[in-house]
């Protein structure tokens, strides 16, 4: 493997790993983080009567100052990152791979 080839290989592997990590975060890990760090996103309030049986005496509603265009921040991020965010990440990956493919052909 010559230097150009090694650089191309490393570029492919690292760009792919980073892009996959970013979309994996929006694709599942983000919601896990929201649950684990719930106090950063939600205020604890008494649970409405109908929900006490399932969730206990207290539950959480999102913090009002953490909102974008009226949506709770975590919901907005989930919806937008998994759509526009993923599209942008995909487009960047495609551009890098197009360039790598041209070098491989050369």
């Amino acid at each position: 493997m010559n230097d150009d080839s090694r650089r191309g290989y490393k570029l492919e592997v690292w760009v792919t790993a980073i892009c996959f990590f970013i979309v994996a975060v929006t694709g599942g890990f983000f919601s896990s983080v929201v649950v684990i760090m719930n106090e950063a996103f939600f205020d604890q309030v008494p649970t409405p009567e109908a929900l006490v049986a399932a969730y206990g005496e207290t539950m959480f509603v999102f913090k009002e100052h953490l909102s974008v265009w009226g949506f709770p921040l975590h919901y907005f991020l989930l919806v937008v990152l998994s759509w526009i965010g993923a599209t942008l990440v995909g487009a960047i990956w495609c551009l890098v791979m197009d360039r790598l493919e041209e070098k491989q052909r050369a």
Partner: protein
Amino acid sequence: MEPRGEVFVLGLILSIVVLLISVLISVWARRFTRSLGDYYVAGRSIGALNNGLAMVSLALSLTTFIGLTALIIEGLYVAVAVYASFTAAFIGLMVLAAPYLRRHKSFTTMAFISERYDSKTLRYISVVVMMIVSVLYLAGNLKGIGIVFYFLLGVPEIVGIIVGGLVVTLYVTLGGMYGVTYNQTFQTIVLLFCLMFPVAIVMRTLGATGWVFPPLGYGDMVPQMTEAVPHYFWAMVAHPVVYIAIFLGSFFGIIGLPHFVMRFFTVRDAREARWSTVVCVFLVGLVNTTVYATGFAAVYYMQAEGVNIPTAAYDYVVFILVEALAGDSWLALAVAGSVAAGLSTVSGLLMIMGAGLIHDLYGTMKPEVDDDKKLKLSYGAMFLVGVAVILFSLDPPEFILEAIMWSFGIAAAGLGVPIVLGIWWKRTNKYGVGAGMVVGTLLAFISWIMIGYMGMDPVDIPFPFFAKYFYGPLGWIKVIAVAVPVSFILTIVVSWLTPPPSEDLQRQVDEMHGWSDVDPKRYNGKGLPITIIILSIFIMWFMTALYDQFPK
């Protein structure tokens, strides 16, 4: 759920128009099919935009159109998280598999696994896994078509399943992959219009100021929603590992579902494969976010306005909502969109099942049979598969989206893992893949039989050690957080303990990544397999943590 009480003439006319155009496109596309390669992979001649649009309609089945709305009513934030993951999963499919599979020049997922690992046995096993996941996926979608017919005509769902199933079988058999591709492109355009406009009208009627752009146009209704349904945006109804299971199921499931992968074998080259996925993820995201708005509107309509819709009718909510808040003409559009959504996905699935049976099963057992005979047999096989699936679908699942989610889980453990490792780790061999595929598939499939088919409570199934942790909303989905990691661990460990694949097989990995030379060090390090094993063990351990903090 009561039918409308009268035949919905406008909806019926638009639905028949969609069905007729679909058959006509197939008849027209038939002229392009001259060889087996034309029939199965459209002569590898499809461009990025056409393939991207075709993939959209494949992804946006009836489960999205009507099933997701039902799931949002049931699961609120968790349901949105499921589809957010499914949307982002297309980029996972692209960066891990799509262009590499295109360079491999196989016809199907099963052929890829067989040729990459040089094993006929793996080809047979993968055909069986493909049939399981495809039938599960189809059953959900055919039930959806039945729901549409029931709503249109008041006839039993079974009639819709038979009529819709026969129409799709007819046009798939006639037109092959060319017909399927052009039909899916047409159906995507129909679906985009037929979803966006009725939902915009519904949002306007409910008072959303941003109704012209439904995906993000209901922010001003959030305060009323949180007053009526305080836990609508609450992520904490489920253990965090549920979201990781959703990630594993959607990201590796989409790679393992052969009808998605087959689309990449139809494009001209790897570049077209990549860009078609970007087109697809943007449009899939647009539609999915519109359906989140529909789900929000449905919950708002039921809770804030005090309308009672029984649980058994949740799969009909889209139509109920559009009829009540937008009117008959918009409802007709929504119904036609649903028909298009159902047809496109069913056609893709029938295509891969026919290809799997003739190309991968019959073709491997009888290699002396020439392509002309295989092509003739393909027409017959496709028709028989269609009829068989219709018969199976006569006893469909209760909620259509659940069957699809199981299908994703089984596909992830059974087919997604060997594809990803086959592309990114040269040391993967047939022994490891055999162990991982069989055990991963069985873990997920047997769990489906007990939970999805027999209706057992997930925490009561005889699943060693883990069953007690399958609690809470969508608790069964945690099965995926065991099956996929186990499949990864077994594949890697058994591959390490057995002889490495031949140089010729390892050369395929370099070729898939576009290298003209071969280097044994490329894609052969220890970093990737060790990282995967550590993450897999962590995920399974994590499921057992925080037991007391979440509702059972």
